């Protein structure tokens, strides 16, 4: 019997395969297709204080082995999340991690406090810090160590649940951002969010995405995700959740070897909503074939050159 379970802080995950924020809706849309209880966990889409309609279309376009999107954080807002989604999650038998996005320190805090006061069911929070801070002239939280530190500290004070900071790869020095999150008391780091990209239609001469800039995801960015996880693994002592371009158990193992304790599957869900379940099966096969008794053996276990 292969042991796929992993633990982050006091939270047990039956396996290391979660689904990524924004790529699996709220988790209920696909329940007809996927037995979500078999997932390691579901990270729900970013929730803001107020409901957001998001950006005008087009919001998405394919690129070579990837996808650009700018959904504009469309979401139902924290109140509807609490009233409509939390009751659904209470009947599930998997870890639900709420992803939070804010445009000011205060907004993040308000959302977290609002949920903390309501539910004990959630396993924790993933904090999307790739959001422009309106107070600091639109500078993204996630590109600044001080902002990241301050945000993490404030949230840490307010919850004992899992606190995961989700980092952006669009920075010079992701290690220092990860360290700031660790210093602020984060329990884990998620990496990476999408890579800044753009696509223009040469026929119409227009942007393919309404907002112009957008986020690149999918297999195209897997090498970027793996590199960032490796860098962060060297920089901090807290667990890392690897994200970016995962489509198979081999990809999961690649991330684990680079230093991830768990992973999230994103874009691949659009092609194959049940892909994470298949990946979990393949992971067991991988472990059996390679005599891995617990998946935790693989974390950071790159072999030195012979």
């Amino acid at each position, binding site marked *: 019997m292969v042991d796929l379970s992993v633990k982050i802080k006091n939270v047990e995950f039956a396996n290391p395969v979660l689904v990524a924020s*924004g*790529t*699996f*809706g709220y988790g209920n*849309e*696909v329940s*007809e*297709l996927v037995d979500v209880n078999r997932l390691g966990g579901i990270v729900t889409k970013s929730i803001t204080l107020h*409901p957001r*309609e*998001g950006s*005008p*279309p*087009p*919001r*998405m*376009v*394919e*690129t*070579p*082995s*990837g*996808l650009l*999107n700018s*959904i504009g954080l*469309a979401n*139902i807002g924290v109140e509807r999340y609490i009233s409509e989604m939390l009751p659904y999650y209470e009947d599930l038998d998997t870890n639900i991690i709420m992803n939070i996005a804010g445009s000011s320190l205060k907004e993040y805090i308000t959302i977290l406090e609002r949920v903390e006061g309501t539910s004990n069911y959630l396993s924790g929070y993933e904090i999307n810090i790739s959001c422009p801070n309106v107070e600091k002239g639109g500078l993204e939280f996630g590109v600044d160590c001080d902002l990241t530190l301050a945000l993490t500290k404030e949230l840490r004070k307010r919850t004992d649940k899992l606190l995961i900071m989700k980092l952006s790869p669009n920075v010079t020095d992701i290690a220092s951002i990860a360290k700031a999150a660790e210093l602020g008391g984060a329990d884990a780091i998620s990496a990476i969010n999408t890579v800044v990209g753009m696509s223009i239609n040469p026929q119409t001469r227009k942007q393919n995405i309404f907002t112009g800039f957008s986020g690149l995801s*999918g*297999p195209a960015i897997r090498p970027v995700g793996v590199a960032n996880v490796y860098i962060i693994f060297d920089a901090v002592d807290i667990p890392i959740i690897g994200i970016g371009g995962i*489509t198979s158990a081999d990809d999961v193992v690649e991330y684990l070897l680079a230093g991830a304790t768990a992973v999230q599957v994103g*874009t691949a*869900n*659009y*092609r*194959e*909503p*049940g892909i994470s379940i298949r990946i979990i099966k393949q992971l067991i096969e991988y472990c059996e074939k390679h005599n891995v008794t617990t998946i935790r053996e693989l974390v950071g276990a790159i072999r030195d050159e012979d």
Partner: protein
Amino acid sequence: MKIEVASISGNKEIAKGIWKMDFDCPNIANNVLGPGQFINIKVDPSWEIPLRRPMSIAGVKGEKITIIYKLFGRGTKILSELRPGQSINILGPLGNIFTTSDKDSFPILVGGGVGIAPILWMHNELNIKSVSHILIIGATTAEEHFLQHNPDKNIFLTTDDGSIGELGTVVPTMESKFKEVSSRSFGIIYACGPTPMLKAIHQITTKYKIYCQMALESYMGCGIGICQSCVIERKNDSPEEDSYGKRFSLVCSDGPVYSADTIIL
């Protein structure tokens, strides 16, 4: 909503650049509700084409589903190269349907471009139920048509170059029908096609105050409501909220069929 590996039983070009494919997929076929619904096809096993391709259902016979598709780009090219016996991965049935009611006498069905499939299915359904109706299909030239122009049977083809049927877009033909039979009330217009066509149809149905349902297209990342890419803008004064909010609606889950007067094209 199911995922099924369907076995292709037929795939051929029925007009210039227009293909028809049939495949067996009992699980999905058994759950189809009617014209307007679509499926989402994984055309490429490799990631060269990251997303599935949405295609309206053009008909269901027993366990077989038919689609009619236009060669557009890389995805539909791969589709057209598949042969009977090969299989494709299908997700469906998805979306809502055109609503019919017994009150609606003499509907007009209008299709064009990649929007022929649901219209044709509707046409076949109405024929089976012996509901009199008018069918108008638009195309650029004769060679893109695979039906026969047959005014006696109320089947009107239009071409931009007049090479078959009526000259021009579908709109003049619609308008002349409106006028011809103005005494008789058209209960409803069912339309599907490219956005400029739908815009023109919306204008004329507004002018003549005829209720119109449209099956829309938008860029779809998933087809099942989890990516939020497929939004269409709603009119501010639309009464209800969609699953999604006031301003936008998800074409894949709330649509693809909308009352023309609730959306902004």
